[in-house]
């Protein structure tokens, strides 16, 4: 299966939230990485068919998703970034309702609900009202809901937001276990989540895709641009203003070890280190003010 974006642009007034995206997605997990406001959610909404693009079209296996209409939505699973729940519904009833909306009937619906509740670890609270749930529990219910119809196209907009570490790992394993015979689009700004999962990473910035490739390929971009150096603590703020600074580790005698992402060698004593995905993110988003660059 293949989803193809051609010249997708979404404008809000004069602002382009998504700017001329051309892209083809194949089976596998595709992570969409980007800063706040970079247009991830907008692109996902367009993919889910709940938002019309100002220009361009999205097609599944050559057919426009708008023309496919309900048959496209039938194979779609979508977890919105901020979604609402029916506070007075019990978790189980909510999933049964989503089954009804997804056209899953009868015993199969019951079976799926039970399975999904187990998957996300909500079986014990299935008869509690959603209004009494914590943020993370709601998020898990949202994940459960998106998987009810065993979707071939799964869109997850920041699925791990609000999940505790244990649940985050559970989710990661769950996603891994899902058959690779589907397209999974996964928006996030948590880099560590995708290092394990993603077959492909897209970095989005100001509505444009600025990098595209497997995690290894992206890391390749940063090779030779990540530096490690020991500096005096007092110098830290000056360095931070001037370079994209990654991890800072405390050292001895008022020295600290900083990781800097920079095209050129920032200091004589700096040494090149092996880049990670975090560094790639910093490479694109660790913006340094122009003035600082100048002096």
């Amino acid at each position, binding site marked *: 299966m293949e989803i193809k974006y051609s010249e997708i642009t979404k404008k809000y007034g004069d602002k382009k939230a998504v700017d001329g995206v051309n892209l083809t997605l194949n089976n596998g997990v595709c992570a969409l990485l980007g800063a706040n406001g970079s247009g991830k959610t907008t692109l996902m*909404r367009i993919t*889910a*068919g*709940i*938002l019309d693009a100002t220009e361009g079209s999205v097609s599944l296996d050559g057919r426009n998703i708008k023309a496919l*209409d*309900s048959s496209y*939505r*039938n194979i*779609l699973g*979508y977890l*919105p*970034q*901020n*979604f*609402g*729940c*029916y*506070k*007075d*519904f019990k978790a189980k*009833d909510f999933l049964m*309702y*989503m089954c*009804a*909306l*997804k*056209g899953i009937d009868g015993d199969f619906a019951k079976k799926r609900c039970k399975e999904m509740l187990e998957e996300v670890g909500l079986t014990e609270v299935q008869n509690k009202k959603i209004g009494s749930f914590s943020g993370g529990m709601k998020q898990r219910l*949202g994940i459960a*809901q998106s998987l009810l*119809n065993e979707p071939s196209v799964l*869109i997850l907009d920041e699925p791990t937001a609000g999940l505790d570490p244990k649940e985050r790992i559970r989710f990661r394993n769950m996603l891994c276990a899902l058959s690779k015979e589907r397209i999974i689009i996964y928006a996030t700004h948590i880099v560590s989540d995708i290092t394990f999962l993603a077959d492909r990473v897209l970095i989005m910035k100001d509505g444009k895709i600025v990098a595209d490739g497997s995690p290894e390929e992206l890391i390749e971009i940063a090779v030779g641009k990540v530096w490690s150096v020991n500096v005096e603590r007092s110098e830290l703020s000056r360095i931070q203003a001037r370079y994209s600074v990654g991890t800072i580790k405390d050292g001895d005698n008022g020295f600290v070890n900083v990781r800097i992402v920079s095209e050129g060698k920032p200091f004589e004593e700096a040494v090149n280190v092996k880049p990670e995905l975090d560094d790639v993110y910093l490479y694109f988003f660790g913006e340094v003010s122009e003035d600082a660059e100048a002096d």
Partner: protein
Amino acid sequence: MLKLIKYEFVKIWNSRISSVVIALVLIISCCFSGYQIYKCKTGKVVTSINRSEYPGGIVSNKNIDNFRDELQEFEGREEIYETDSAVENFYAGYVLKGKYDVKEDDLFEKAVTGEITNEEYNKIISGYNSAPCIKEEYLAEYFALYYPITVYETAQRDKNIYFENSERADYELNKRIDYSMKAYNIADNLEKGIYYGYDYGWNVAEGVFDSVGILLIFVIIFGLCGVFSAEYNSGTDSLLMATKKGKNKLATAKILTGIIYSLICTIAGALVSYLPSLIVLGFEGGNVGYSVTHFQHLADKSVSLILACCVISLITLCFSAFFRKVTSIIFCTVLVSVAPIGITMFLTSANNMPFDAGVLLNTLPANMIINSHQVFQQYATIFQGLLTIRTLYISLVVSVLLIILVSLLVKVLYLKHRIRN
């Protein structure tokens, strides 16, 4: 589809405003019903007959003379009248207990001839609009003759008034046609026969139902204002719109929910209005009434209420699909639904009705609810008098058209709304 509708009802049921309003309306209508029944039971009602024990029947042109003859013969019998002392007892308070019913004319006669003093006469008249004179054991027999004649004469009088009005040159054509239709209708009834009899249960119920009808507007507006807007506000719309049935089918389900909700409201309204008074005051008398029997009234009224409620519920859904704020939805729906009442009142008071505007305005939903009595006995004339139809039929067509149009609009508004969350 049925499942989707079921869940919509669950959502309505879960919403606090709708349950509060439903409970309030239920309480108000129970109080109203109770008060009317209480008034009836204690005899504080201004109608000619205040008991259930007289037999009903049919009166028509054919048998009216028999009734008159029999009544004359009956009234000629000496033994049926009360003695003076019993009448005095009556003054002392029998009436207030509702034990006697009387002939006012006789009382007047007695006052004129000096048999009773003017003071006594006034006392009785002010306390009760009749006075005693026939013994209790003869009352049933008496009313069996007296009542059909009264019914017949009232109908006859109405017919004459309508007929005279229909002849008046200073009236507009359509008004005259309306009157002549009514006169014809009554004449027809007089020929075929009019049912008469005890019908208190039905009478009271009708009054209650007319008032409950207005309250239904609020049950509908408050019940349905969140059908779309609550999804928008809580952010569930982004979930719904991405599911197979969450667009078109869900919109259809919501519209059907609105229609079924109106239906249920009307039926519940009818039950709440009719059952208490029928149970307490008796089920008999449904076929009583000239021109419109109680059964017919209930049927006509229910049809017009269902249609009007459907239209109002769809208008509510329309605003619910458009606005997010509940106050805006309620304000706009009330404005649009109730506006025709205001326009009608304005046009009537300005005495400036263009052609049949008044009649036609009455076919709009809110007017249908408050003017239902008028609506189904009214006729509208179109094409210069070439066609005269009952306004109920116009309402039917107008409502069905409105329902289709507004449903389409609701769908478009829902599908085109912008997701915010």
